[in-house]
């Protein structure tokens, strides 16, 4: 199931990258596009192995950069570093708490674009940057934070549908039944 889970995450990441490029209603309304990959990285690093996180960072980063003007591979490291930090301290995090998921999603969605921007500037490219970028960062942070608990819900649902359900044994035993009465 672990491999299957990683495959599901990759499929969702692939569709998420396409949706970001195709669905531009939010961008036209509020001037910023929400990135779904940080939310997926938070989910993966809290519930899967570090190698699943690395696979998602590499594949998701490559897919995102291939459809964008970003230099190829520039999104990989920020995604992975965020995933690594969360994965390292996941025993200390309340991963089943929706508020904690939301906060982690917000932090990841804020750090990933900042690190990516830092790398792009260091490579020598000239992205759109100004005071208005703070608004875009705010929207990305908020959107990522709200999407993270939804991610958890979605994958929990997939698990519930595809995993074997545990057999719940009842405590009833006929030979230990207390029979009351006068007989």
């Amino acid at each position: 199931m672990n491999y299957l889970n990683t495959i599901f995450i990759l499929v969702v990441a692939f569709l998420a990258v396409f949706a970001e490029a195709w669905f531009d209603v939010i961008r036209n309304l509020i001037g910023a596009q929400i990135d779904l990959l940080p939310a997926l990285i938070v989910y993966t690093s809290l519930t899967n192995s570090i190698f699943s996180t690395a696979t998602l960072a590499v594949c998701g980063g490559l897919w995102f950069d291939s459809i964008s003007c970003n230099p190829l591979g520039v999104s990989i490291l920020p995604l992975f570093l965020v995933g690594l930090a969360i994965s390292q301290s996941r025993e200390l995090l309340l991963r089943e708490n929706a508020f904690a998921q939301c906060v982690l999603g917000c932090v990841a969605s804020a750090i990933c674009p900042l690190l990516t921007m830092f790398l792009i500037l260091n490579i020598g490219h000239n992205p759109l940057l100004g005071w208005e970028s703070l608004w875009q960062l705010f929207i990305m942070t908020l959107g990522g934070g709200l999407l993270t608990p939804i991610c958890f819900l979605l994958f929990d649902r997939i698990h519930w549908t595809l995993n074997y359900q545990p057999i719940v044994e009842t405590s009833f035993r006929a030979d230990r039944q207390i029979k009351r009465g006068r007989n």
Partner: protein
Amino acid sequence: MWGRFAGTMFKRSHYIALFLVVLFVVILSRIPNQTLGNMKLAIGGMFLPLFGLAATSHDLVQKAGATALPRSVLVEQNDQLRQTNETMTIHLQQYEGVWRENERLRRLVGWQKQNRWSLRLAHVITRDPANWWRSAHIDAGSVDGVRPNQAVVCAEGLVGRVQSVSERRSQVILLGDPELKVAAMVDVSREAGIVQTTSSSPQENNMVDLDFLPGNSDVRPGQDVKTSGDGGVFPKGIPIGKIVDVRSKDYGLSTEARVKLSARIGSLEEVWVIVQ
């Protein structure tokens, strides 16, 4: 000391994963740009089935909408289109006469012959998912005659430039992207400058700057800005937009104007690539 700290900080599997990812990124960064561009196109090609699916669903929605339209509205639209078509045909005849006259006069004066644009219609399929670039993908590629650096226009004016081309799809850098600079001139005063973008503005993504105008420039709000043809990428005379305001720069040594784009970059659906 450091070893103990690092031991508590990272697990062995984390070290291995970190090493592998960093190694992969370093290898990617050492690959030549052309190979990297080809890799980008190849990886982007994985989205082709989804592009097709998106286009089909868009067509289906449009067809469903057309089916739901009442007959009276369709008849009215048809009448309007017929009238527009007749007007355009008359204008075209007039334009053909002017074109021939222009050709003859150019030949007499000995000026270079002007070529007619050969246009290729394309649909915008996706936009850049990153907020810090302005680009889009169109459904025309090398098999349709699209090549890098060709100009992309719409009915209202200039849209951008083709950046990279695969077999069936191309990436277009849109006006407003900091990587796109266009040689332009003000239509009335014929003063030349460079259209570029220096900062993002999410609420005003249809504004660009016209820089490097002379210090004593006479440009005014409302004047048209068109491509000047300098540099050879964009043909001369494509409308870019209208000047909104003007301000002096560098202690009066140069002038900068803000230009509102003619093309609605945020809601493009169909564009034309000037293939020749």
